[in-house]
């Protein structure tokens, strides 16, 4: 083989080696890209860092941790998930989806916005609870028998299934819960007053969410939410 043909062969082999190297490099680069796009579990990787979002999340976590510390139940209005929840020590113990009636998504957004207020308040205690009407869970005649057998006052044994009740926070924010229970009004005067108050304050910007709930879920929510109960809002 002549010197010129030898050098031509070596050039070709050099180019082919280079081409293989380039291909390998491209392959590795594409693998690296894939790895950075998804995590090991196949879920999308974290978004690029955003200080403002991180601060919001941090405040929310810190708020929840402070509530969890008390080891008492607290109410959570989880707007992104559209659930009303009860949590104890950071653990979900009760939940119900926000089934809206007479109100819509924009009311949820406005409620969330007003709850946060200018200071971004994530937690507020329930200020008032108003029961419009209810019905005894167990018939009185049955309770009388149980009461005699167990030596416990029938009134203690009774659970009131709410037909409708309201939870109120500062600024007139109202959660109005309705069920299909045909109950007796607790006080017609108080009910009318509450309705008038709502009719006056709502056009002035006081937000109301109206939810429909099955009777047993409403019973839990009604009994578990006393004035003073802290409420955490996960903003919409």
């Amino acid at each position, binding site marked *: 083989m002549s010197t010129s043909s030898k050098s031509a062969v070596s050039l070709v082999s050099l180019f082919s080696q280079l081409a293989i190297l380039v291909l390998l490099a491209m392959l590795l680069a594409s693998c690296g890209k894939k790895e950075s796009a998804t995590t090991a579990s196949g879920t999308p990787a974290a978004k690029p*860092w955003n200080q403002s979002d991180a*601060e919001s999340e*941090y405040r929310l976590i810190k708020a929840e941790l402070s509530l*969890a510390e008390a080891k008492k139940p607290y109410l959570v209005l989880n707007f992104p998930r559209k659930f009303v929840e009860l949590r104890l020590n950071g653990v979900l113990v009760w939940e119900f989806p926000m089934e809206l009636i007479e109100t819509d998504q924009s009311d949820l957004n406005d409620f969330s916005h007003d709850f946060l207020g200018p200071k971004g308040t994530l*937690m507020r205690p329930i200020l008032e609870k108003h029961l419009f009407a209810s019905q005894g869970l167990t018939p009185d005649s049955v309770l009388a028998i*149980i009461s005699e057998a167990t030596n416990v006052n029938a009134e203690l044994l009774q659970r009131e299934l709410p037909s409708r009740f309201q939870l109120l926070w500062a600024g007139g924010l109202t959660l109005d819960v309705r069920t299909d229970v045909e109950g007796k009004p607790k006080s017609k005067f108080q009910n009318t007053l509450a309705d008038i108050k709502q009719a006056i304050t709502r056009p002035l910007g006081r937000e109301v969410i109206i939810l429909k709930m099955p009777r047993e879920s409403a019973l839990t929510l009604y009994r578990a939410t006393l004035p003073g109960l802290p409420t955490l809002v996960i903003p919409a």
Partner: protein
Amino acid sequence: MAVRKVLLIVILPVFTIAAIVLFALAFNREKPEVIAEGYTVDTLLTELPQDEKKAQKELTAARKALDKLTPAKPYIVIDTHANRIYMRTKDKILLDARCSTGSGGELIDSVTGRRWIFDTPRGIFKIRRKVTEPWWRKPDWAFIEEGEEVPKKESERLDPNVMGDYALDFGDGFFIHGTIYERLLGVNVTHGCVRLGSEDLDSLYKQTPIGTYVYIF
């Protein structure tokens, strides 16, 4: 007369409108924000560091602290308001059953003045012990309630027939157990224990290892 007419025509409506406005303002005024007892509300001024790496570290630690609160394994939830018991995870309900919890009734021993309140305790507990074919060791109140004399012999306190097939001990003398009064499930009739129907008890007993968390609200 003219002055009176002017007064009536001008001042009276002005006063009336002013009164309505004042009333509306008073009615509509925001109530002072009350800080719930035992909670630090909106005093959470802990801020993330401005340095990105430090902030990421701080946020990750906070997320971990919150995640750590939810048990990794299924946990029991007892809703004393609706008398329901659940075995669940964060996302899924594995068992949903009717139960009976404490009545809240009070018993006072007229002789000694001792007092009992029959409430199911609220809070966070753990299953400490699992018992098959449990016998009830009647406490003093069980005799006082029936107007009987408290026995001196230990054997006279034991009753093998009232707690069902299984009992799950969650501390301080409180159990999740069966009942011979299944028709009363859903009513707050117990002395603090949690009663369950036999089929649901069987299922719960099999699903519950010792150490399972119990959340009662």
